[in-house]
C-alpha cells in the first residue's frame, strides 16, 4: 500500500467527491460532516509520507505508468524534500478551511464540498507530478474549482474577481504550454523520441538565447501565480471577494504553486536563462516586498491588507529561491509553509470578525480586545508570526532567506543589496500589521455594534488551535523540517550550478552529440518503448547540431 501512497492520496478526495456527488442535496449535515472527515482521512494518509527516506535526493514513493507511449506522456509522480512539506501543508489546511466555512456557507453546500474536494485533488496532483504534461493538467484543473468558489459564494463583485483571477492565470499558463511544447519538440529533435518526463527534459542542453525565451514563458506563468510585483493585482480582488474557506486555501496553497513551479520546473530546466534573469527577478521580489508592505499599510479593508502582506511575504520567498544557496532555498520552502500557516490563520480570523460584523472595514472596529479577549490574543500571536518574531515560525524562514541572499554566489554583488532592502521589509511588516491591530483591538470601543460581540466559538477555537501550536512548534523546533529538505535542496543547488557552468562555456558545437550529452544509458532504464528508440542516438547527425538545436529550418 505504501508503494502507491501518492496515487491513493490523489484518489481519496476524488472518491469522496464521488460520494458527495451522489449524496442527496437535502442531506446538508451529512455532506458537511462527510467532507471534513474525508479530508481528515486524507491528512492522516499524507502523514504516511513522512517516513520516506529523505536523506537522499531521490524521489520517494515514485510511480510511473505510461499513459501515451507515442508522445512519452507518463503518469510519473514522486515526492522529495521540496514537495513533501507543501503536500502536508495542503492536506493540513484544507480540512481546517472547510471546517470553518460550514458556518457561513448556506447555499449550494453540495457544490461547495465538491469544489473543495476537487481543488484538493488538483493541488496535490500539481505538487506530486514529475511529468510536465501531468503537471500542466493539474495546474489548469486547479483553476476551475477555485473560480467556482470565488464566483458563486463570493462577495458583491465576485464575478469580476473570479474572471480576473481566471484570466490572469490562464494567460500565463497558455504561454507556459507553448514553451512546454517547444521544449518537447527540441527534445524530440535531439534524441529522436518524445518525452514529457521532467527527469529526461532536464538532460537537454539548449543554447542560451533559447533557454532565455523558454524560461521567460515559464517564469511569467509562475510569477503571475506567486504573485510577483507587476502581476499581483488579481490577488487583492480575489481575496476580498472569496469566501473565508476559499480565501484561506487560495492564500495557503495556491500561491505556493507559483514558487514551487520555479523550484521544480523553471530553474532546473533552463538554468542559463534563469541565471541571466536572476538579478531582475530578485529585484522584482524585493520591490514586491516593499511595495506590498506600503500598499498594505494604507488599505482600509482587512482582507486587502492581508492580501498585500502575502505579496510582501512571497517576495521574501522568491528572493530566497533566487539566492540558490542551501539556506536560502530551505528558508524559502520553510517560509512557504509558514506563510501558509500564518496567512491562513489571519484569513480565518478575518472570517471570524466578518461573520459577526459583516464588514471588513478597519474603521468599523475599535477596542475589540475588551469584548473578545481570546480572539485578540490569537490575533496578536498570529500577527507576531506574520511579522517574523523569533520563537515563531516567521523568523526562522526570514532569517535563513536573508542569510542566504546575503552570502549568495549566484546573486553576487546585488545579494547584500537585496538583503538590505528586504530586511527593511521586516520593519514595514511590523508597521502595517500593528497598525491593523491598533485599529481593531486597542483603544476605546467606538462603535455600539462592537459592544456585545461574542468571543471565539468552540468551532473557531478548534480550527485556530492547531495553527497556533504549529506557529510555535516550527518556530522553536524547525530541525525536523529542515533536515528532510536538506538533501533535495543541496542537489537542486549543485545541479543548477553544474548545468549553468556546462551551458555557459559554449561547448564546441560539433561534438555535442559525440559527447552524447544525452547518455543513452540514462534513457534506457526508463522503460520507454524500445522500438525506434534504440536507433535514435547513433543516427549520424546530418548537419551541425547547431542548426538542429539552434533554430527551426
Amino acid at each position, binding site marked *: 500500500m505504501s508503494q502507491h501512497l501518492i496515487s491513493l492520496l490523489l484518489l481519496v478526495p476524488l472518491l469522496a467527491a464521488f460520494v458527495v456527488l451522489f449524496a442527496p442535496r437535502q442531506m446538508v449535515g451529512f455532506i458537511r460532516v462527510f467532507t471534513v472527515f474525508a479530508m481528515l482521512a486524507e491528512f492522516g494518509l499524507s502523514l504516511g509520507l513522512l517516513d520516506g527516506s529523505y536523506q537522499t535526493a531521490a524521489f520517494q514513493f515514485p510511480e510511473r505508468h505510461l499513459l501515451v507511449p507515442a508522445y512519452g506522456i507518463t503518469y510519473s509522480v514522486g515526492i522529495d524534500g521540496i514537495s513533501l512539506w507543501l503536500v502536508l501543508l495542503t492536506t493540513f489546511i484544507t480540512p481546517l478551511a472547510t471546517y470553518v466555512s460550514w458556518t457561513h456557507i448556506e447555499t449550494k453546500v453540495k457544490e461547495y464540498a465538491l469544489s473543495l474536494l476537487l481543488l484538493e485533488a488538483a493541488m496535490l496532483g500539481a505538487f506530486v507530478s514529475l511529468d510536465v504534461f501531468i503537471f500542466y493538467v493539474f495546474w489548469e484543473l486547479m483553476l476551475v474549482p477555485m473560480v467556482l468558489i470565488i464566483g458563486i459564494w463570493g462577495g458583491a*463583485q465576485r*464575478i*469580476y474577481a473570479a474572471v480576473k483571477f481566471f484570466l490572469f492565470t490562464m494567460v500565463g499558463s497558455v504561454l507556459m504550454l507553448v514553451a512546454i511544447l517547444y521544449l518537447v519538440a527540441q527534445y524530440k529533435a535531439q534524441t529522436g523520441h518524445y518525452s514529457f518526463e521532467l527527469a529526461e527534459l532536464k538532460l537537454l542542453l539548449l543554447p542560451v538565447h533559447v533557454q532565455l525565451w523558454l524560461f521567460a514563458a515559464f517564469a511569467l506563468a509562475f510569477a503571475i501565480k506567486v504573485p510577483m510585483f507587476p502581476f499581483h493585482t488579481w490577488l487583492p480582488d480575489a481575496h476580498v471577494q472569496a469566501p473565508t474557506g476559499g480565501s484561506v486555501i487560495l492564500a495557503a496553497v495556491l500561491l505556493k504553486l507559483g514558487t514551487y513551479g520555479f523550484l521544480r520546473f523553471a530553474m532546473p530546466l533552463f538554468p542559463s536563462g534563469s541565471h541571466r534573469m536572476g538579478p531582475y527577478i530578485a529585484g522584482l521580489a524585493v520591490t514586491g516586498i516593499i511595495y506590498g508592505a506600503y500598499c498594505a499599510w494604507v488599505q482600509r479593508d482587512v482582507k486587502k491588507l492581508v492580501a498585500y502582506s502575502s505579496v510582501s511575504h512571497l517576495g521574501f520567498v522568491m528572493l530566497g529561491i533566487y539566492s540558490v544557496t542551501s539556506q536560502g532555498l530551505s528558508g524559502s520552502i520553510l517560509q512557504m509553509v509558514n506563510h501558509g500557516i500564518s496567512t491562513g490563520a489571519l484569513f480565518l480570523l478575518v472570517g471570524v470578525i466578518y461573520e459577526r460584523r459583516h464588514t471588513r472595514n478597519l474603521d468599523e472596529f475599535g477596542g475589540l480586545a475588551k469584548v473578545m479577549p481570546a480572539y485578540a490574543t490569537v490575533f496578536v500571536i498570529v500577527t507576531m508570526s506574520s511579522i517574523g518574531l523569533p520563537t515563531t515560525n516567521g523568523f526562522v524562514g526570514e532569517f535563513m532567506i536573508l542569510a542566504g541572499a546575503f552570502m549568495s554566489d549566484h546573486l553576487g554583488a546585488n545579494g547584500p543589496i537585496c538583503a538590505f532592502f528586504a530586511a527593511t521589509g521586516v520593519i514595514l511588516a511590523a508597521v502595517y500589521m500593528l497598525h491593523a491591530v491598533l485599529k481593531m483591538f486597542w483603544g476605546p470601543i467606538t462603535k455600539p455594534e462592537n459592544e456585545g460581540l461574542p468571543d471565539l466559538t468552540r468551532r473557531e477555537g478548534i480550527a485556530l488551535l492547531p495553527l497556533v501550536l504549529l506557529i510555535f512548534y516550527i518556530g522553536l523546533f524547525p530541525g525536523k523540517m529542515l533536515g528532510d529538505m536538506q538533501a533535495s535542496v543541496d542537489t537542486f543547488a549543485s545541479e543548477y550550478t553544474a548545468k549553468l557552468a556546462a551551458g555557459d562555456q559554449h561547448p564546441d558545437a560539433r561534438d555535442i552529440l559525440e559527447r552524447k550529452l544525452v547518455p543513452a544509458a540514462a534513457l534506457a532504464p526508463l522503460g520507454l518503448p524500445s522500438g525506434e528508440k534504440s536507433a535514435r542516438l547513433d543516427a549520424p547527425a546530418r548537419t551541425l547540431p547547431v542548426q538542429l538545436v539552434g533554430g527551426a529550418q
Partner: protein
Amino acid sequence: MTAAAEGVFFLCAVLAVLSALGTVSLHSPIRAAMSLLTHILALSGLFLVLHAQLLAALQVLVYAGAVVVLFVFVIMMIGPAVPEPPVHRGFLIKVLSVGVMLLVTTVLMMSVLPVTLPTLSLGPCAPGAGAECAQFGGVAAFAQSLFMDALVPFELISVLLTVAIVGAIAVARGRTSEEAQVAEQKRNAADKALEERTLREKAMAAEVSAHGGH
C-alpha cells in the same frame, strides 16, 4: 462572316448594352422589366449570329415568355407605383461596390478583348438534306448531344424545377387570418424575449466591468 451578320451583331450588341443599362437604371420596375425583355431579345439575336438557333428560340420562349412575364405578373401584383423611399443610407458602400465592380469589369474586358480563336467553318447542311441534317446549332445536333452526353443533368434539372415550383408555392401561399394572428403573436413574443435577454446581458456586463471595491 457576312457583312449582314456583322451588322446584326453590332445592332444586337448595342441594343443589349442599352437595355441592360435601362433595366438597371430605370426607376419604375415595370419599365425595368420591359428593358429586360428587350435585352433578352437582343441576346437571342446574338445567339442567332452565333449559330445557336435552338437556344435563341429557347431564349425567346422560356426566358422572354416565361421569366419576364413572371416578373411583370409579380410587379402588377405588388402594384407598380410603390414609391421607392429616397433612403441614402449606406451611400459610401454603394460608391465602394460600384468602384470595385467597375475595376473588375474593366480588367476582365481589357484582358479578354485581345483573345483570338480561329473561326472554323461550320459544316453547312446540304440544301436538300431536310430535317435530319445535323447542322451545328440545330435542334437535331443539340438534341443529339443533350440526350446522349448530358442525360443525367437533364433529369436533375427536372427534379430541380419541381422543387422550385413546390418551394415557390410554399413560400408565397396566402395566409388565412388566424394563421396570420398566430404568426404575429409569435413574432411579438420573440421580440419581447429578445429585449429581455439583452437587458439581462447588459446588467451582467455592467457588473463585470464595475470594479471591485475601488
